[in-house]
Each structure stands twice: as C-alpha cells, then as structure tokens.
C-alpha cells in the first residue's frame, strides 16, 4: 500500500465578494501518494493552480484541510508554514522565476541559502544538481543566457536541491516547445520521481500526459474524473 503524501478534504476557495464572488474550489477531496506523478488537468479557469497553491501551503482555503504526511499545514502559523514549504515542497513555477542577477548555480542554491546553509557550500551543492539536470559547465553564467528548456532544468534543480518530499510543477511546459517539454517531463519521471517522492503537476498540455502515473480531471472547481496510467 503506497504511503499518502498529501490528503486534502473538503477544500473550498472563493475569490472576490458580493456579486463578483467566484468559487474556485468546490468541496475538493484529493489524495496523492509517494511514488506517483499526479497530473491535475483541465481547462483554464477550472481551479487547477488554485488547488495546487492550496495543497502546497501558498494559498489558504476558506474551508477544508490539507494534511501533508502528518502535518495539517493550514493550522501552522506563517513562519512555520514558510518553513514547511522550504523543507517539504519543491516548486517549479510556470514562469521559472529565476534571478537574472545571480549565476545559474546561485539560483539553484537559493533554497539552501534560505535554510541558512553556508553560501559557498550551497553553491557547490547546487553545482552537483546542475550536473544531474544536464547543465554541467553552466553554473557560472546567468540564467538569462540559457534557452527556455535549460532554464526549466535550472528551475527543477532549484526545486530539488533541498531534497523535498513533494515536487510541485505548475504548467512546466507552458514556455517550452513540444520536444523540450517531453524531454523535461521524461527526465523528471525517470530521474526525480522515486518511491519517497510525490510529484504533482498542473498542466493542460496533453502531449505530456504519457509521463503521469495518474491524471485527475478538474472542471469548474471540482475533480471530476481520475485516470490511472500504467507505470513506465
């Protein structure tokens, strides 16, 4: 029986007030397990990113609970929640959000630096992760000089450097061409996913569905369908 990584119950989230009030999540229940790469797919505005933000401790739900391993994350205060994200979650943002004034290795080292690890040691460790994502020799250049695919790999290295249990990827192929997107997700599936890690991907790029272990369909703030995929 696989271990539960994330357990969400009755998640409700709304935005705006009065007539402008819209409900982004409507009583969403979800379980994600270690060793699986779960895709949350659906049309724009269906609530995918909102759900991902609530699951990862970024956006507080108006109702419901999220349990990550044995931590009820929305009972934590702001500092403990930040600590939780730093230690347990690796983020790959849709727009990468790399720092153009830092070198590639320094970008990757940021989570370690936030964990108060010594600067030079963090950068050295980051260089090792750059090697893992196939960017050996690119450590000293700023990320703006890298291609979109390479920047995505830097973002993945940054998400992985603190060895989180859960990797959150928001539209990871949105800025990439089809081949690069496939290569990135293939790499993640083969090299990042393991039995002690859970990867949650939000996407509406059907070209990368083949890398998922399970696909959750989302429509109008609800999870409507689950598709189990065979392990590759």
């Amino acid at each position, binding site marked *: 029986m696989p271990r539960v990584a994330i357990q969400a119950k009755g998640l409700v989230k709304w935005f705006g007030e009065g007539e402008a009030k819209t409900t982004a999540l409507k009583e969403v229940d979800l379980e994600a397990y270690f060793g699986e790469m779960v895709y949350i797919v659906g049309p724009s505005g269906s609530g995918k*990113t909102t759900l*991902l*933000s609530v699951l990862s401790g*970024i*956006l507080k739900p108006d109702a419901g609970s999220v349990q990550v391993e044995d931590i009820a994350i929305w009972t934590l205060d*702001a*500092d403990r929640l*930040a*600590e*939780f*994200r*730093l*230690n347990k*979650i690796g*983020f790959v*943002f*849709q*727009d990468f*959000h790399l*720092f153009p*004034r*830092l070198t590639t290795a*320094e970008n990757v080292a*940021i*989570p*370690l*630096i*936030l964990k*108060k*690890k*010594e*600067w*030079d*040691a*963090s950068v050295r460790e980051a260089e090792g992760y750059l090697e893992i994502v196939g960017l050996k020799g690119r450590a000293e250049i700023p990320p703006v000089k890298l291609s979109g695919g390479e920047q995505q790999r830097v973002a993945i290295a940054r998400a992985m450097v603190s060895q989180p249990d859960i990797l959150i990827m*928001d*539209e990871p192929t949105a800025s990439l061409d089809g081949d690069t997107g496939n290569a990135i997700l293939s790499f993640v599936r083969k090299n990042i996913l393991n039995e002690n890690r859970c990867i949650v991907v939000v996407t509406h790029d059907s070209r990368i569905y083949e890398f998922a272990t399970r696909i959750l369909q989302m429509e109008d703030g609800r999870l409507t369908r689950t598709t189990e995929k065979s392990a590759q």
Partner: protein
Amino acid sequence: MHNLLQILTGTGSAAGKEMPVKGTLKLAYKLLVNDTAKFSALLLGIIFAVFLMMFVTSMFVGVLNHASATVINIGSTIWIMDPAVQTVSNTVGMPDYVLDAVRSMQGVKYAVPLYSGGGLAKLSDGTYQSVSIIGLDDTSLLGRPELVEGKIEDIYAESGFIAVRDAEFSKLEDPHIGSEFELNDNRGVIVGIAKVATSGLYGTPTLYTTYERAVQYLPNPRYTISYVLVEPKSAADVQRIKQQVEALGYLALTKEEFMQRTADFFVYKTGGGTNMLIMVIISFMVGLSISGQTFYTFILENLERFGALKAIGAKSRDLVGMILFQATFTSFIGYGLGVGLSVLLIWLAKLRLPSYAAMLSFGNLAIGLAMVSIIAGISSYAGIRRVLRIDPFEIFRG
C-alpha cells in the same frame, strides 16, 4: 567590497579564520550590486544629498570657526567681558579697575588685559587696508602667536607689529620683516611674521602688537580693555571666578563658552541658522525623494523575486533583513562617497581660495549620518511594507 560586506554583516573573518557571510544578506547584496544601473542611481541620490548637506553645514561650521578666530588663537582659559558682548569681534570696553578687581579675586592665578579692535592701515603704495589689531599684555604677551619669522621680543621695538600669515596676508602687500605702513598717522614696522590656528571671518589681515601700543595708535573710547584674560589656579576655581565676576557686573566665560556664545549669535540672531536648517531640510528632501523613490522602484522591480522567495519558503524576517541590509548598505556607501566628495571639493576650493571657510566637523558628519539613516529607514519601510504584502499566490499564478 566583499570585505566591507563581511564587516557590515558582522560575519567576517575572526582571528584570521574565514567565516561564511550570512547567506540571505549575501543574496540581498548580490541582488543589489549586480543591478549596476539601479545601484548606481541609488548611490548617486545618496551621494548628492550627503554632499549638499555636508557642503552647507561645513560652510556654516567654517564661518562659526572663523568667527571665533581670536578666541581660538589667543587660547586663554577664561575671558572676562562686558555682558553686552555677543561675539569676540564686537567688543565693549571695560574700565581699568575691572582688571585690578579680577586680579584680586580668589582662584585667579593671573589676569591680563587684551585689546581687540580694528584700524585702517595705509600701505606703501598709498592704498588703505582695514586691519584687525590684537594688543597683547605688555608684560606677559599672553596669547602671542607662533612666529615663523623674527623674534617675539621685537614686538617691543619701536612701532613693532607682527603680521599674521593667513589667507588675508597678501592684502598687506605680502609684508616682510622691515615692511612699513601707517596706522592713524603713526608709523608701523613689521618685526615678525606669525602663523595662527584660524584666520578671521571678515577678510581683514591681522596685526599683533602690545596692548599699550594698540591703545596708543588707535582712537579709543573712554575704556580701552576689550577683554581680561584669566588663568585660574585650578579647574575647580573656574566656577568661583565666574561668580565673582558676575557679582562685579561683568561676564566670565570659558574659551568653549565664548565660542559657543559667538556661534549662538550667528545661529540665532543673524538668520544663518535658519538658512542652514532650510538647506539641510532641502538636501534631506532631495536625498529622500531621489533615493527613496529609486529604492522603492528597485523593490517594485524585484517584487516578483521577493514573491518567489516567499513562495519557496523565505520567512518575513528574512525578507525584512534583506531589504534593510540593501537600504543600509546603499546608504552608508553613499554616505562615505558623499563625505569623500565634500572633502575633495573643499580641499580643491581651499587650494584656489585660501580663505574659503568650509570646514568639516564631527557634528557635520553626525548630522549627515543621521540623515542617511533616516533616508535608509524610510526607504526600506516603504519597500518592506510592499514586500510583506506580496501574496505568493500571485507569483504562482504567473
């Protein structure tokens, strides 16, 4: 720069062993200085503000210092004067009995008269030049200047005067020993050239002579003693002497008090202090508006990065620390460069104009430091408020 960073963060080398710079501050430092254009603009704003402020206040300090030139140069411990005296230049004569009375007071080691006044010297080419005359006590020559040419005892020679080689020296046609001039139809001869710590405020050359010759050469009112210079037997006697002088109807001030009284006159009774205050406020506003706005723009442009840090797991205090560090680092580097620029320009100005009054003091530096600290505080406050309000969800949503 790296060493400076270590000093500022307090994590530099200890006993020769290299220690790591605190990571988040180094991150803040790199985000700041690697954005060369923005960092330069921030520095320029601070430098300009500090320079403006330093220049105005140093000018004022210089004027105050020159205004007290006689007090500084004579160097007596206690000065006794008429209570109406506001500055050392505006003397009110005192009758001779004041000198006798002071000499008989308890705690007085010695007391001598000093003449301080002005005259019109007719130079060898027939032109007239205003001069300041200091008449030293004939017996002790207390307050005599340091001679660079000639001997002090020659001041007793017939018509002997000592010229002070300061910024105004050339107005006496660069006199040398033996140069002659006329003072109220009396012949004067330069018997020595002296140097003093501070030249006067009013742009007139200074001549030293004996007290007796001064009152003899210059037209005088009924009373001729400008000041009585007193040396107390001990520091504890100063207060007692002041009380006794006050009982006599006169005023006794220490050297520092007299300088302060002179300064107060210029600050509070001439409008100079108000003007300086206005200029300080203007330079503060300029610095705040340039640096504050540039820093705030810098924060806004990096808002997305701060949001990303927040989403990844940076705590609020990490972000606050980073912004405070960036503002403080910029402000203090700008302060140092601004002070350096002021010193350089004052030095260059003095090369061209020896009488240029500007002078930097610890007070100037402290005011400047306080000003940049406030600018740093206000700038970072605005930035911190903005950064703390970022919702990492906005970053997530793209």
